[in-house]
């Protein structure tokens, strides 16, 4: 299943609802383009809803990291929401859990940007 991305805004925060797989190729490129588009429009608060991401490979992890550093370098914040157990475990294993701000509920995630 390819990656699908739906975009919405909540209290000034751009929420990207991701579904499918973030892997080398189409998925990782889509994610990169979507985030760069938001940053290019001046968006400073980006929340990636990962609740429907059932698979992410090392390229996908790299894309998340690149998105985080790109956002940070542009003065924006990028945070993660609702990791599935498998994605959670991968971020723990690769120590990327220490890099990102990660939330289980959307309200708390949105509030954290204030």
């Amino acid at each position: 299943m390819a990656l699908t991305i739906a975009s919405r805004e909540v209290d000034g925060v751009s929420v990207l609802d991701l579904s499918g797989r973030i892997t080398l190729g189409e998925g990782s490129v889509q994610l990169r383009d979507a985030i760069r588009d938001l940053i290019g429009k001046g968006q400073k608060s980006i929340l990636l809803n990962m609740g429907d991401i059932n698979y992410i490979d090392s390229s996908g992890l790299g894309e998340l990291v690149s998105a985080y550093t790109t956002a940070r370098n542009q003065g924006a914040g990028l945070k993660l929401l609702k990791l599935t157990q498998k994605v959670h475990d991968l971020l723990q294993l690769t120590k990327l859990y220490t890099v990102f701000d990660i939330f289980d509920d959307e309200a708390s995630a949105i509030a954290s940007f204030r």
Partner: protein
Amino acid sequence: MESVNEVEAAANKMACAAGLSEDDCFHVTMAVREAAVNAVLHGNEYDPARQIAVNLENTGSDLVFVIADQGKGLDPTTLPDPLAPENLLRGTGRGIFLIRSFMDEVNFRQLHPGTELTLIKHLKPADETSSPTPGMAS
């Protein structure tokens, strides 16, 4: 990338048919996919004129996956540690780490040209989980 997807599907089928747990099946599949991606992307540098060779085998005691590319070769001892603080924010470099995390044995062989990666997952014997604890009365 179609070949990578095919390799992933074949590995998943074999791992699950071998009776691995859901988690182990997922991890083995992921490791094999990472190896295939490395072969295509880093080994063959996405050159359509180069091919990868893949062999999947269930020996009864092990699942053995062999993936070979036709690239310049890889010295695994030169790979940076993706867990090192200075490397955490790198966009690449986690593939082989994940392979090593999920497989019981990982062996590199230089083919000149190319690199061959052998991934091995040991299969638990059928009677291992039902063995009585030593010292306990039956």
